[in-house]
Every structure is written in structure tokens, then in C-alpha cells.
């Protein structure tokens, strides 16, 4: 029986663990090692160069531009997305006209809104990026045509072509594609808050804003916090890579104004043939990710509320 048990455990774990080790763990370990080498990625020959890559990185202006943008992403994007999502979710669940017999109620058509808001979540970020690239097009795009139609002929921004505007255009796409997910997530969380709490607050004469900050937000805090971490990791990783690579000129342009760390890693490794240096930038990205996640968990630590 014991013997059979261990044979069973090994038999069940061996294939998933082997796949995971070969395609995920091993490359991660290797990439840390390669960050100390001058490996080009094209030939199998390389030598260990110590901290040379890291020194080079410190003096690389494109790296710092990408770094700054990634930091802006990770600090700003989650806040915007979570704020909009919390607001919309609160309106959906608590913002309804007060009915007889219920202290709080959702607005009419709340299920419909939730379905619509979720649309972007099921689409590929690549498709979303392509679509918005056309919307932003200064000559034939829908946005500038709309501005002309409402009489703003003089306001015809270059959108993605304008270095001071491009980064915000890209961020807007990520906001557009992510808010719906969090609205639905927070709605589910709000639905599990007992109605008695709202009744008690209303009896005490609390306004909607007070109700939100004193009841909804504290009781939803765990969900908000995990959403925050999730959104941060996402805005540093694959999603920021996809939107920047697809939408921006260069990509990463104009003039490095939109480059982010995940795209810069890709460019160094697969465009410039500097795989060793690319992994160095990847390590910097890893550090930013871990610092962010650690920071959120630290700042957000509160007494867990049981209800």
C-alpha cells in the first residue's frame, strides 16, 4: 500500500513537473545566469563578464526611459483601473433608486451593464491594440473624425505620433480593456456584503460616499488588494508588451516615449542579438515586479475583517 502510494505520487507528478521544470523553471534560472554574460544568443560561445551588463544598463538612456514608463504603468494604471472599477461596481450594486423594503439596491439593468463591461476581457489584447491603433490614426482614425464632427477641427492630436501623448494613449487602451474585469470582480465581492450593514449605516444617516468608504471599501479590501497586485503584474508584463509592440511606432517610439521594460527585453534579445544584456534588463523587470508586489502587500496590510 505504502509502496503503491509513492509509485502513484511519482507517476502523477513526473510529467507535469518535468514540463514545468524544462519550460519554466530552467529558463528562469538560466536567465539569471546569462545576465552576467556577453552571450549574443546567436552563437553558442559566450564568456562570463561579471557586472558589465549591469554597468552598461545604468548608463543606457533607453533602459531608463523604459524603466520610467514601466514604473509609471505599475503605479498609475492599477490606481486608475481600480478607481473606475470600484466606482462603477458601487453604482451598479448600491447606486439604485431606493425601493420600499430594501436599504440598498442595484441600478436597473445592472446585469446588462456587467455583460457589456466584460466584453474587452474576452478579446485578445493583440486585437484590442490593433483596433485602437486605427481609432488613434490621425488622418483616417475615428477619434479625430469624431472631433471634427463635433466642431473641434482645430484639435486634431497626433495621438500615438505625439511623444508627449503617446504613452497616455497606450495606457488608455489598457484601462479600457481591464476595467470590466474588475467591475465584475468587485460586484461579486459587494454582493456578499450583508445588507444589514447598509441598513444600519442608512439609519445613522450616512451618505452614499460615507457608506462606500466606511463599509464597502473596508469589507472589500482583500479583493481590492489582490486585484491591485494582479493589475500591477499585468501592466508590467505581457499586456504592456503587446500594446506597445503593436500600437507604437518603432515600436517603443516616437523617440523612446512609449518603450517599456518588457518590450525592451524583447528588442534586445530578438532584434539586436544581445541575449545576455536582454536578460539583465529582465532581471531589473523582475526586481520592479517583486518590489511592487511586496510594497502593495505591505501598504495594504490591515486587520482582516470577518463577516
Amino acid at each position, binding site marked *: 500500500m505504502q509502496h*503503491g502510494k509513492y509509485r502513484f*505520487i511519482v507517476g502523477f507528478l513526473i*510529467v*507535469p513537473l518535468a*514540463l*514545468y521544470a524544462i*519550460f*519554466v523553471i530552467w*529558463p528562469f534560472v*538560466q*536567465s539569471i545566469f*546569462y545576465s552576467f554574460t556577453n552571450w549574443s*544568443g546567436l552563437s553558442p560561445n559566450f564568456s562570463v563578464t561579471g557586472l558589465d551588463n549591469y554597468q552598461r544598463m545604468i548608463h543606457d538612456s533607453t533602459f531608463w526611459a523604459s524603466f520610467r514608463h514601466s514604473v509609471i504603468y505599475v503605479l498609475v494604471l492599477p490606481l486608475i483601473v481600480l478607481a473606475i472599477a470600484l*466606482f462603477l461596481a458601487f*453604482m*451598479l450594486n448600491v*447606486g439604485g433608486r431606493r425601493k420600499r*423594503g430594501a*436599504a440598498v439596491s442595484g*441600478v436597473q439593468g445592472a446585469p446588462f*451593464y456587467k*455583460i*457589456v*463591461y*466584460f*466584453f474587452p476581457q*474576452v*478579446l*485578445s*489584447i*493583440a*486585437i484590442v491594440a*490593433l483596433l*485602437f*491603433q*486605427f*481609432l488613434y490614426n490621425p488622418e*483616417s482614425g475615428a477619434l479625430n473624425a469624431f472631433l471634427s*464632427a463635433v466642431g473641434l477641427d482645430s484639435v486634431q492630436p497626433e495621438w500615438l505620433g505625439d511623444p508627449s501623448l503617446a504613452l497616455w494613449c497606450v495606457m488608455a487602451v489598457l484601462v*479600457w480593456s481591464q476595467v470590466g*474585469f474588475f467591475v465584475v470582480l468587485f460586484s461579486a465581492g459587494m454582493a456578499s456584503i450583508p445588507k*444589514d450593514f447598509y441598513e444600519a449605516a*442608512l*439609519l445613522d444617516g450616512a451618505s452614499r460616499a460615507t457608506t462606500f468608504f466606511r463599509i464597502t471599501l473596508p469589507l472589500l479590501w482583500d*479583493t481590492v488588494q489582490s486585484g491591485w*497586485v494582479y493589475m500591477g*503584474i499585468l501592466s508590467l*508584463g*505581457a499586456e504592456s*508588451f*503587446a500594446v506597445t509592440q503593436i500600437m507604437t511606432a518603432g515600436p517603443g517610439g516616437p523617440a523612446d516615449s512609449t518603450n517599456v521594460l*518588457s518590450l525592451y*527585453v524583447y528588442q534586445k*534579445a530578438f532584434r539586436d542579438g544581445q541575449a545576455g544584456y536582454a*536578460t539583465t534588463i*529582465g532581471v531589473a*523587470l*523582475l526586481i520592479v*515586479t*517583486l518590489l511592487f508586489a511586496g510594497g502593495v502587500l505591505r501598504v495594504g496590510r490591515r486587520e482582516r475583517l470577518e463577516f
Partner: protein
Amino acid sequence: MKTTDTPPPPAETVPPRMPSAAATPTAATRDKKTGGVLNVFSHGMLVVWAVLVVAPLLWAVMTSFKDDHGILTSPWSLPNHLHFENWSRAWSQAHMSDYFLNTVIVVACSLFGTLLLGSMAAYVLARFEFPGNRFIYFLFIGGMSFPVILALVPLFYVLQNLTLLNTIHGLILVYIAYSLPFTVFFLTSFFRTLPTSVAEAAIIDGASHTRTFFQVMLPMAKPGLISVGIFNFLGQWNQYLLPTVLNTNPDHKVLSQGLVELATSQGYKGDYSGLFAGLVMAMLPVLAAYIIFQRQVVAGLTAGALK
């Protein structure tokens, strides 16, 4: 929570769940008024966001029926007549049919593999005590927070050495490996919630561990498998980063990647209408599937974050 002993007798005539009615008449009307303003405001914001979500999608659908001239000169005008030939051109000449087929093959195989291997590993980790259990579990879930792009540089060369680069089966194995962390995390906690007595009964009746797993535990875990299956289906169907780096063979391209290819190569062909048709073609199946299965999709995508 009943407070029947506190209110004075007259309050009994007022419905206990109508807090605003208990206030003075002036306060009640004021309350109603601010409620009304807030209601208009909140509903207004909900409508604005819904329009922001739907407008770009509808615009894409409309544009896919226009000819190139109409797309470039007047982005918001309706098509002069429905150019269905855009769709047929995108389907056959622009290789959308090939991209669809590749995506279906890759996602079908990797989804099956992910669920099978993920549930095997999760079951063993959730139900059996053995040395290294916790270590393997944390090894798996650690993969959720690391930036994938960091591992991609060495992974490219790992696949090249295994002659898996630019192959469909190589891509499938990579999809499975990168889907395992969340799948194992989710299913481990799911298997822990299932009652142990049924499996014990099966063992006492002489079933092997393997048979117990496939014939007793897997059917019991069906709701969890559906949730995590939907999550992985969307993630793998919409995957852009992994195929962009690891699968550059034009014959093996998947949907999101193929569309971006189409968009970058249409620079010289100028086939905007075909591109929009392709874009909408890629959007519609997922949106349709979402609308049909929306309850399950929402549950599947938010279940992980709520844990």
C-alpha cells in the same frame, strides 16, 4: 440582530426596513432629491462607460463592411453597400482560415493537456502527504508572479535545442507549462474542499489510486475543471507573447499573431477592409461564446482572484 425590543410602539407602524421614511418629511424629500440627482449621475456614468466599451467594437464591425476608400476618407460614415467580399478575401487570401485552424489545434491540445496534467498534479499535492509536497506546491504557484518575458530569452534557445522551435507541438507544450501555475493553484484548493469519504470508499472497494482519481475524483471536480478550463481557454486563445517569440513560422501562426502580421504587411498592400474583416472575424466567435456562456465565463475568470 432583531431590535424589536428597542423601538417605541409608534415605530411599529413604520415598515422596519424603510429608514428614510422614519425621518421628518422635509428630510425625506431632501433625501429623495439628492437620491434622484445621484441616480441620474450614477446611471449617466454607467451609460458613458458602456458606450465607451461598445462604440469601438461596433465601429470595427461597421468598418469591416466598407471599402478602402470609405475607410480612409470618412471613418464614421455607414458603408455605401455591404462589402461582404472583404470577409471572403480575409478568410481565404489573408490566411485567416489557416490561422483559425492553427489556433483551434493548439488551444484544443494544450487545453486538454493543461487540465489533465494540472488536475493530476493538483490532486496529488492536495490529497497526499509526502516529503517535498509544500516545496513543489510553492514552486508551481511561484510561477504566477514572475515576468514571463524574462524566461522567454533562454526558453527560445531551449526550444531550439530540442528542435521544438516554430512547431505546433512545441507551442502546445509551452502553453501547457505556462498554464500550470494557475491551474495547479486553483485545482489544489478545489480538491481540498471535496469530501475525502468517497475516495476512501473507492479505495476500500479495491480501486487503485489511479482508478479512483479518474473515475471518482475527476467527475466530482467537474465544476472546478470547468472554471479553470474557461480561464485557460481564453488565456490560450488570446495568447500573443508566446507565439510571437516562439512560433515565427508563417505556416504555424495563430490568430492574434496572424492578425498583427496582416496589419504590418498591409502597409504595402493597403488592404484595410480585409484587415478589418479579419479583426471582426477573430472577435466575433469569442464574443458570441461569451454571451452564450457568460455566467460560467465570469465565474471562471473571477473565481481565482476571489480566493
